[in-house]
Every structure is written in structure tokens, then in C-alpha cells.
């Protein structure tokens, strides 16, 4: 205990934060993965996972153990170092993003002045992992997936940022905490419904969720950019996807749904996180719902939709917001 006290408190806090974040990434993926499979079952007139644990709650843990036990195969023609690196490129940034998420008034690792810019920048980094994974697999289907992913992410980044800027114009700040605090009277989803819709659609495209799941379109590209990945490295992509979904949801909640605000619960200081999580998972539920209902769009339709509709509408929305704010 003596030695423990001699450690600098900063270091202890950092280690605790890292452990909590990684734990949360896994937990979130377990919950979302289970939720997705159960909900998909509901939508499809079937019970979903039922075998492992009561109502199949342990199914995802069983899957994780199975994936850990699998051999990681590197194709002979693949670029081995970069092929190995790709899953980590996908996985590491998602941990970093947690720094700025304001789960409640007090639960935030650090409130950067540029928190929003930071989280959007880190989220955009995901595309590098997809590109490296697809390109270095030396598989044509993977390459297709990577090429699609880059075009899609670059295109949808624009309406996403434009819609976010509209909110920033109102709040006059890019600190996540201040954006949340600025919504104490009225949520931005009321004042900026168009921006929210654009953000949500673009967010689904950013995270490659159906109907925008073109980089991994299984009926066309077998599994897209992660065709060649197996075992734990495959599950890193899986974890990254679900964590990115969580970020899209949590940025939406912070920007448009008043963040942690909600009636105070008996836990007082920590009631914020309950509301925050509830809102995020509600948005994610809608994303899952959409995924299991719609067919996939075609690639040119996806880009047309972005450039011809989303981007112009986002621009007009931004312009109108700017004029109204100035008034």
C-alpha cells in the first residue's frame, strides 16, 4: 500500500481510465451484439440466440472465446506487417474517442476545448483501417470493399460535418460539455431537426451499417474488406464497428438530445449517465431496426444520394442557421 501511494496520481488515473475504456468497449460490443441478434430475431419471427445462458445472454461471450481460439491466417500473397496492423488501426482509435464523451456532468475523462473536432477526427480515422485491411489482403473482393469504403466515408463526412457545424453555430463552442449545457432549455433536435436527420443518415453510412453496408456487402463481396481476417483480428473489426456505432449515437445525443440531461434519479450525481446511455441505445435501436428492414442501396445511388441531396440540404441548412443566428 505504501508503494502504491508513491505512484503519481496522474498515472493511476490514466491506467484506471484505460482499463475502464477497454472494458467498456468490450461490454458495449457484447451488449450491442446481443441486442442486435435478439432484435434481428424479433424482426424475423424467430427467437434469436437461446442456447448459451438464459435467453442466450452468454452467446456473445461464447463467440468471443471461439474467436480467440481460432488461428489467425495470413494469406500467402498478403502484405503481412500491414495485414497484421490493420485490425489495430481499427481498434485503437475507438478507445481514444472516449476521452471527450460527456457521460454526465462529472463523468468525462477530459473536456477539450476542441472535443467535438477531436471525436470526429478520430472517428474518421476508421477509414484508414478499412483501406489498409482491404488493400493489403491481396484479395479482389477485399479491395472492392476498401475502395467502396473510402469513397463512401469521404463523401459522407461532408454532410455529417456540415450538419454538426450548424449546431456549433448555435452553441458557439466545440467543447462537448458546453454543447450539452447549451441545451438546458431546448434540445437541438427541436431547433435543428434537418441537421439531426442528415447527421444520423451520414452516421449510418460512416459506420457501414445497412442499408449503407457496401464495404462488406455480403451478397456481392462475400465479406468485403475483412474477408481474409480470422480469429481475434476479425473480432477487432467487429468491436470497432460496434464502438463506432456507439460514438455516432453518443455524438448525436450530446449534440441533439441534450446529453445527460433528464429528470434526476435517486443516484443524484450519476443519474446523468443513465439518461445518456438510454438515449444512445435508443438511437442504436433505430439503427438496428433500419438495418434489418431495408435492402442495400447500390454504390452509385449511395454517392448520388450524398452529393445530390444530403450535401446541398446540409449546406442550405447551415446557411439558414447562420442567418438566423446572426439575426
Amino acid at each position, binding site marked *: 500500500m505504501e508503494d502504491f501511494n508513491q505512484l503519481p496520481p496522474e498515472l493511476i488515473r490514466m491506467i484506471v481510465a484505460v482499463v475502464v475504456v477497454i472494458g467498456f468497449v468490450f461490454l458495449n460490443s457484447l451488449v450491442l451484439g446481443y441486442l442486435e441478434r435478439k432484435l434481428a430475431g424479433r424482426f*424475423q419471427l424467430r427467437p434469436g440466440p437461446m442456447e448459451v445462458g438464459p435467453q442466450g445472454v452468454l452467446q456473445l461471450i461464447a463467440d468471443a472465446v471461439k474467436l480467440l481460439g481460432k488461428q489467425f491466417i495470413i494469406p500467402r500473397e498478403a502484405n503481412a506487417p500491414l495485414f497484421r496492423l490493420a485490425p489495430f488501426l481499427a481498434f485503437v482509435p475507438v478507445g481514444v474517442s472516449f476521452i471527450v464523451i460527456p457521460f454526465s456532468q462529472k463523468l468525462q475523462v477530459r473536456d477539450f476545448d476542441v472535443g467535438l473536432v477531436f471525436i470526429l477526427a478520430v472517428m474518421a480515422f476508421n477509414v484508414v483501417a478499412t483501406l489498409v485491411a482491404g488493400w493489403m489482403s491481396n484479395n479482389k473482393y477485399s479491395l472492392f470493399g476498401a*475502395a*467502396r469504403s473510402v469513397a463512401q466515408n469521404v463523401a459522407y463526412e461532408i454532410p455529417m460535418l456540415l450538419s454538426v457545424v450548424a449546431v456549433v453555430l448555435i452553441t458557439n463552442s466545440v467543447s462537448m460539455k458546453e454543447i450539452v449545457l447549451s441545451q438546458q432549455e431546448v434540445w437541438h433536435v427541436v431547433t435543428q431537426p434537418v441537421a439531426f436527420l442528415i447527421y444520423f443518415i451520414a452516421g449510418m453510412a460512416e459506420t457501414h451499417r445497412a442499408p449503407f453496408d457496401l464495404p462488406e456487402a*455480403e*451478397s456481392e463481396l462475400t465479406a468485403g474488406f475483412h474477408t481474409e481476417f480470422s480469429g481475434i483480428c476479425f473480432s477487432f473489426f467487429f468491436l470497432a464497428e460496434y464502438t463506432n456505432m456507439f460514438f455516432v449515437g453518443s455524438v448525436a445525443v450530446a449534440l441533439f438530445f441534450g446529453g445527460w440531461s433528464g429528470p434526476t434519479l435517486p443516484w443524484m450525481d450519476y443519474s446523468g449517465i443513465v439518461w445518456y446511455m438510454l438515449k444512445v441505445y435508443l438511437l442504436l435501436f433505430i439503427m438496428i431496426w433500419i438495418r434489418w*428492414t431495408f*435492402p*442495400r*442501396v447500390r454504390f452509385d445511388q449511395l454517392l448520388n444520394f450524398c452529393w445530390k441531396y444530403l450535401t446541398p440540404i446540409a449546406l442550405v441548412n447551415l446557411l439558414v442557421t447562420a442567418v438566423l443566428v446572426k439575426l
Partner: protein
Amino acid sequence: MTTATGNQDRHSFFLNMGPQHPSTHGVLRILLEMDGEYVLEAEPVLGYGHRIQEKMGESRTWKAFMPNTSRLDYVGALICTHGYVGLIERMAGIEVPPRAEYIRVITSELNRIGSHLLWLGAFLLDLGAFTPIMYTFDDREQILDILEDVTGSRLTYCYYRVGGVNRDIDESFIEKTRDFIRRLRGRFKIYQDLITDNIIFIKRVRDIVRFTPDMARRYGLTGPLLRSTGIRYDIRKNEPYSAYSEFDFEVPVGTTGDCMEAYQVRIREMEQCLRIIEQALDRLPEGPVLVKTPRKLKLPPGDASFSVETARGELAYYLVSDGSDVPYRLKIRSPCFSNLSLLPEVCRDMLLSDLVMVLGTLDLVIPAIDR
């Protein structure tokens, strides 16, 4: 084909789609010459599941080949068997009791609906919608249960016999079938909302390719694809076999011949199938279901052919007999083969996603191609 060496003017590369690929629905391989996401040329490569069915037909007795016929187009197995028994009855001059003909029509039409439902689900799966297949399978399951009660199997039926059917149907079969008709009529509304009116589905399917009557003639296109081009050709109407001439039903046709029309033709066809089944159940004649045929059946020398309308088009059997108890030559004409041969022409300069969609529209059953 010019693609054997690759075209030098274009920056093209080859993409091997299949034999293991989620949307070829079997062991079909398609060699694609691609320019980015665009397909320049497509060449189907067959033969991965070839089982010498025709030769098997020539090396065993007339009756012994019957189980093989349900392994051709296994999604519509009863209809395939229907063609073969019809052929032998035509050659041997066997008169089938009317009740047996009616039972054949009822079970064949149930099988056709099941086939269309499977296609519908798989087609939407090709388009990336995961949910509809569960709904269509739920409906198809009812058909399989009904057919299982009377035939004893769920997929590769061997129910028809030369001279009738194996077992008579009972009251519970009729009851269940009527329930199913009611149920499916209600489900069409769900499919309308879930699929037909879905904006993404419409955008994906409409006006991508155009099957023309001219193309249909050149490739021998049959079935819903042919009817989607506006040609009203259905063996059940044009060359009625079994008891089909006694029923009142329409042959749905399209106008433009795109994939949306082919989709709608199939959906409307299911409604017509229900009408046929209803009429057959109402007017089901009494009597035996099987006439006695000699154990060692010898057909008179000569040749004959018999066509049936499967869920995919015209399935024709042609055989030559030399008077012995095995066929001299048996030729099977599968609609899937002709329908697939159209693919290279229609998919030129189209996106890979559209190729998958067109492949889904063709509704191929690969074992019927690789016989």
C-alpha cells in the same frame, strides 16, 4: 469469347465469382472481366455439380429413374416428376384417373408457390435485405408441412407414379390447404408493404436491364422472365397437360421486361396458383388415384416429348424408346440453362451489384443446369 486474353484497350481485370459465392446459389462460377466496379464481360462456367442425370436415365428402367427427376430442380421437385410421368404415360398410352390428375395439379401448384416464395426470399437476400427470407420461409414451411403429410418428404418428393399418385389425399390435407390459401392471401399485403413499396427496392430493381421478346427468342427464355417481356406463353395454357385445361386462371404478363416486372409476374402468379388450387379442391372428383401398370413396363418403339411449366419456365423431356424396358435416349431441357445463357448479354457494362440482382432475378437452380 474475346475475354480469354483480356482486352488490351481497357484497364480490366478478372474476378472469379464462385463456385463458392453467397449469391450464385450453388456451385455456379462466373468469370467476370471487370473495369473497376463495372462488369465488361461475364462468362458462366458450368459443370461443378454434374451428375450425368441423362445417362442415368438411359441405364435404368423407366420407373427407376423417377426419383432422379426430383433432384433436377429440387425447389420444384413435384413439377419435374410430373413431366417425367406425363411423358411415360403419353408414350405408353396410360389413362390417368381424374382424381389423380387433380391431386397432381394441387400438389404441383403448392410446390410452385413454395418455389416462388423461396425465390422471393433469396432474391431479397441478394439485394441485402435479410428479413424477407424469414417471412417467406415461414410461409413455405406451411407448404412443406402440407406436402409432407401426403408425400412423406419435404424437398425431393417422389410422389407421382406412372398412372397416378402414390397416396390419396384426405380431409385434413384439404382443410390445411384451405387454411394456407387464406393465410397466404393475407401475407401478400405484408410483402407489398415490406418489399414492393420499398423505395430502395424499387430503385435497385426497376429499369436496370431489359429483357426483350427478341432476346427471349434467341436464348429460349421461358417462364416468368419470358412473360415479363409481354409474351403470354405458359405451357399450362398453351399446351395444357394434366387437368390444367379445366381451370380458370390467368397468365400474368409484364410490359417492359425489367426485373421489377419479372418480380411482379411471379407475385401475381402465386395468386393465380391459389385460384387453381381452390378450384381443384372445390371440384375434386371421386375415384381411384392410381391405375395398375405392368411391373416391367415396356414402351413401344418411337419417340415422344412432354413439357411442363415449372416455376422457372419450360421443362421438357424428350425420349427415344427402342422397345425395351430402358430408354434408348433421354434428353432433359432445363429452363435454368437457357435463362442463364442470357446473362452474358444483359450484364455487359453493368455494376457488380446489378449483376447480383440480375442473377437473382433469373432464379437459377444450379442442379437443374448441371444435370
